[in-house]
């Protein structure tokens, strides 16, 4: 059987060699590869540097802690008045950016003048365009009250004056004169007719003149017996009287017009008399605001011209249809108190949590009247921008982007420099009823938009207008350096949070643990997380524990229990994963050694809880075209970064071993029992060890797990979630029984990030578990195989028997096989 045929039939790697080490490997790493000392696994708080017994002794701290960069941006943004210098505040969730910014703004706002009040009033010239009037801060409510009282007074005064005897007398005199004029004309006609034996007869639709005798119409038969000349005379008389009747009838519209004019003039005079004094009194309070005086004067003219007439009509029992449409006749004189800066001092700070279009830029409401939707200036409602105008408006970027039209409307408002209320329902054709176009109000506003960094970067990339309107970026830090000063600062913040939420004070050790937890949250022993919300959650839970234990102070124990309980509540999935490993459903070895097999480590984060888990990575090799196949990628379960990591392995192999021969390798790498996507390159060093093991045919220790990415030069690089990864493997080993040889290889660069769980530290301290920092692949391979990787000698060859030497030999053998295959193919062709 030819080599080629054997390889095909067996389907195994070729050439097959005996493993260099088959069973136990004697671990004797050099001094520099020793496990990390316990001190480097966790950085305890130096409680001696915290100068207090309990947080009750600490001064509260408001505003921004550890956010100098953001603070500088906020101060700059708030002090620049030019358009466009609004702020986009970004940072991690839970950093309480809004609260921090509010605290900073509160100082700024109190030093500024209260902005103007605004009211909307009826536009007497064009009712569809309500008029906006600006008043000094705090005066709008007085204006509204004054006008309301004025209206009440006018109602009484007008009603009284139009019911007065004087008015009734004048009015009756006009009516009577009119009636008299008509009556006299008709009476004269009637009398004139009667003298000539003619009567005026009423027909169903008008009048007729007929010959009469004793006041009754002469029967036709009798009339026909009259002499001809008498009948002719009657006829002539009637014709003359018809002309008189016609003359009177034709004069009636003129008389009626004259009557109306006279009544209108009386109404005007009467209304003027009634309104003058109350209006003068109302004006006296606003002599310093010409715009208000102008409005009141317009109102006076309208009252005299229109309302008085309507009142009179009502008195007569004839309702005015137009007045019905407008509701109460006097409603149009009311004042819509739009924005009133009554409370507090300084500029307003408004946070709009629901920035729907109407809530943001105001809206026009409608009421249903006899089945139709109608509106008027009193139904114009202010939005958050109106309320914040002259001050600061705080908006959540996600919320405003989720609301239809709001983001665009905000930008449009900032661009226009004035607030125009847009009736979106009308634009979209949802309503076809008459709407309003209220006067726009000048804008003088500083907008703060809060959001994730991702939102900012996406908007910056996709919406060019964003940077035009939000020129100032305030980027909140996730963490800050863990110096004694900063620890003291954070302790004060902890104290402030506890007080703000009405929690018990914390003892010093408890604060120490909170600070250590802040380091763990920062994923860095040398930093403290500034995500205040997470710390607050722990404090509340610790307070609960202390209260349950009937204490009046929070101890370290309470904080510790809180942290454990939080993990316990969230760890159901982690426990199920570990259970599957322990029950051999998910295959993970924690003892022994295998060729081409290694324990990689991954992190799963769900619902804010992250946990690490070991994953078996295997590798098989055979002669090929120099390709390292990532099976995850082939089946589209691997993300691009993961694929990149695998491709780097080929680069490493080529650079280290294929210096004089082409790479004739086919290697396949797989995450065993991985059924979901794999992303990230933190397993690339583990994959490389598996590949090297398969090539060298040297088994790898299964009591070790590996994390870290690798570059083409074989340097092991830092990864994220190092603590969770270590703890994930530790949990499995501990469940199976710690042997003392178990441990985890981590990148050297990740040592500074270690803030491990107490049980892991205890095991390491007792020599039952180890954390190995690794700087490069050679160090890792030595730990995993117990054999030196080997270096090239002066002859350019690796030390015989070293891992590298075995790999290079194997690759040469693959190349030889490929060449023999190539020759065989050429021979076959020439034979043909």
């Amino acid at each position, binding site marked *: 059987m030819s080599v080629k045929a054997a390889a095909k039939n067996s389907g195994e790697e070729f050439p097959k060699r005996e493993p260099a080490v088959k069973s136990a490997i004697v671990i004797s790493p050099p001094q520099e590869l020793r496990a990390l000392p316990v001190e480097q696994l966790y950085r305890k708080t130096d409680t001696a540097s915290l100068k207090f017994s309990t947080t009750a002794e600490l001064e509260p701290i408001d505003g921004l802690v550890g956010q100098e960069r953001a603070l500088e941006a906020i101060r700059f943004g708030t002090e620049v008045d030019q358009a466009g210098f609004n702020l986009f505040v970004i940072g991690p969730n839970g950093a309480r950016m809004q609260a921090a910014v509010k605290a900073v703004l509160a100082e700024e706002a109190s030093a500024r003048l209260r902005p103007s009040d605004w009211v909307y009033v009826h536009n007497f010239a064009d009712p569809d365009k309500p008029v906006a009037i600006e008043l000094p801060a705090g005066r709008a409510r007085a204006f509204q009250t004054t006008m309301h009282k004025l209206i009440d007074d006018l109602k009484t005064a007008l009603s009284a004056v139009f019911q007065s*005897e004087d008015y009734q007398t004048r009015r*009756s005199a006009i009516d009577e004169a009119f*009636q008299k004029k*008509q*009556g006299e*004309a*008709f*009476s004269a*006609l*009637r009398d004139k007719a009667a003298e000539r034996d003619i*009567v*005026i*007869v*009423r*027909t*169903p*639709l*008008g*009048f*007729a*003149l*007929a*010959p009469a005798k004793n*006041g*009754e*119409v002469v*029967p*036709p038969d009798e*009339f026909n017996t009259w002499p001809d000349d008498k009948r002719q005379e*009657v*006829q002539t008389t*009637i*014709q003359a009287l*018809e002309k008189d*009747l*016609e003359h*009177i*009838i034709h004069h*009636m519209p003129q008389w009626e017009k004259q009557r109306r004019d006279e009544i209108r003039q009386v109404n005007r005079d009467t209304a003027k008399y009634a309104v003058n004094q109350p209006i003068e009194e109302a004006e006296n309070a606003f002599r310093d605001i010409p715009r208000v005086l102008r409005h009141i004067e317009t109102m006076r003219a309208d009252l005299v011209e229109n309302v008085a007439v309507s009142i009179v009509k009502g008195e*007569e*029992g004839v309702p005015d249809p137009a007045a019905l449409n407008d509701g109460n006749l006097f409603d149009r004189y009311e004042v819509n108190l739009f924005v009133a800066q009554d409370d507090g001092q300084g500029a307003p700070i408004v946070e709009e949590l629901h920035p729907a279009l109407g809530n943001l830029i105001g809206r026009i409401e409608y009421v249903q009247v006899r089945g139709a939707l109608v509106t008027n200036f009193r139904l114009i409602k202010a939005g958050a921008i109106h309320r914040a105008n002259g001050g600061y408006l705080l908006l959540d970027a996600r919320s405003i982007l989720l609301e239809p039209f709001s983001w665009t409307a905000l930008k449009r408002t900032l661009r226009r420099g004035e607030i125009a209320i847009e009736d979106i329902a009308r634009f979209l054709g949802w309503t076809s009823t008459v709407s309003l176009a209220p006067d726009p109000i000048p804008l003088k506003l500083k907008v703060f938009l809060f959001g994730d960094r991702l939102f900012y970067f996406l908007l910056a990339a996709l919406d060019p207008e964003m940077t035009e309107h939000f020129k100032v970026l305030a980027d909140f830090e996730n963490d800050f350096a863990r110096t004694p000063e900063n620890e003291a600062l954070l302790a004060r913040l902890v104290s402030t949070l506890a007080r703000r939420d009405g929690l018990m004070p914390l003892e010093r050790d408890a604060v120490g643990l909170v600070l250590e937890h802040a380091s763990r949250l920062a994923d860095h022993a040398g930093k403290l997380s500034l995500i205040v919300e997470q710390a607050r959650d722990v404090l509340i839970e610790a307070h609960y524990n202390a209260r349950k234990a009937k204490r009046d102070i929070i101890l370290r124990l309470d904080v510790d229990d809180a942290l454990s309980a939080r993990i316990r509540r969230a760890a159901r999935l982690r426990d199920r994963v570990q259970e599957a490993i322990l029950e051999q459903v998910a295959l993970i070895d924690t003892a022994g050694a295998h060729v081409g097999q290694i324990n990689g480590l991954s992190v799963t984060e769900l619902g804010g809880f992250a946990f690490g888990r070991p994953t078996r990575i295997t590798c098989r090799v055979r002669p090929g075209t120099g390709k390292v196949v990532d099976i995850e990628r082939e089946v589209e379960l691997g993300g691009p970064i993961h694929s990149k990591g695998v491709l780097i392995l080929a680069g490493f192999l080529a650079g280290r071993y294929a210096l004089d021969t082409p790479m004739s390798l086919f290697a396949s790498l797989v995450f065993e029992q991985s059924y979901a996507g794999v992303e990230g390159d933190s397993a690339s060093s583990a994959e490389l060890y598996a590949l090297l093991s398969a090539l060298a045919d040297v088994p790898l220790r299964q009591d070790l797990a590996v994390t870290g990415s690798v570059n083409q030069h074989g340097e092991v690089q830092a990864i994220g979630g190092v603590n969770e990864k270590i703890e994930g493997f530790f949990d499995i080993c501990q469940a199976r029984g710690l042997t003392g040889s178990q441990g985890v290889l981590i990148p050297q660069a990740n040592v500074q990030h270690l803030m491990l769980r107490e049980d892991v530290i205890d095991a390491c301290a007792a020599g039952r578990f180890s954390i190995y920092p690794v700087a490069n692949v050679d160090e890792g391979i030595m730990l995993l195989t117990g054999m030196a990787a080997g270096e090239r000698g002066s002859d350019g060859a690796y030390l015989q028997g070293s891992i590298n030497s075995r790999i290079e030999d194997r690759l040469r053998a693959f190349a030889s096989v490929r060449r023999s295959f190539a020759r065989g193919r050429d021979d076959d062709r020439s034979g043909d």
Partner: protein
Amino acid sequence: MADEAHTFKRLVVGLEPRASDRAMRVAVDLAELLHLELLGLFIEDPSLRDLAAFPFVREFQPMGGGWRSIDLDRLTDDLDIAIRSAERVFFGAAKDLTTRYQFKVARAGAAEAIASISRLGDIIAITEPSTPAMRATRHFSWFLNAAFHSDAAVMLAPFQVARVKGPVVAIALEPDDPSIRAAAAIAVAAKENLIIVHGPEGKDDDPQYRKLAAETGLSITHAFTGNASLSDLTTYARVLRNVRERLVVAARRTLEPELALALVSSRHVPVLVIVPS
């Protein structure tokens, strides 16, 4: 008790082609208040049809119609339309009435029609003409005279009624003036106050007033004309200056037809002129 104080049985509403809904409503309300039977009476002047026999007699229609000759067929149609219109207005106003009501057309002279229909215990309601032109016609004076010459009480209603709520005013020459009991009966039914206007000789301390108040539970106010005569229209303007009454009641001997009509025109409320029993 107060219901028994009046002797009215029926309200006869004189209807015309352009009847006022609101004036009709006043009549219906009074019928309901006093539990009166209601009769809508349209009197068709028979001499109207004779006009067609005069070739030179023409009809003038004020609303732009101008002069036109009188054609009997068209006149008949116009009359039918007028009757149907008056009938519709009448039934529209009376539809919620809890007492009996009917509509009749009388083709006779007003005097004959009233004489044949009216009886003691009737109130004949006549609405003031809407225009002086109407007032000048034979029709109105004819109807007014017929009513005032009948045995029935006459209620003159304004074309436009100022108000339908307010006290009831009785104009009394003496404490046992029939207008007082009639006005009291209406005031009790309408849950209104009673105001008694006394002439020059009138006094408010008569025991009959206290008795009436005790019997009916009415709040009775007295107003005095002083030396002014009750037959002078200006007297009422002065005495009733601050009163917003819904109805004025007087005896026929107190208010002559012309004065009653003038009072209706000036107060814009109905005036009920009753006949002593």
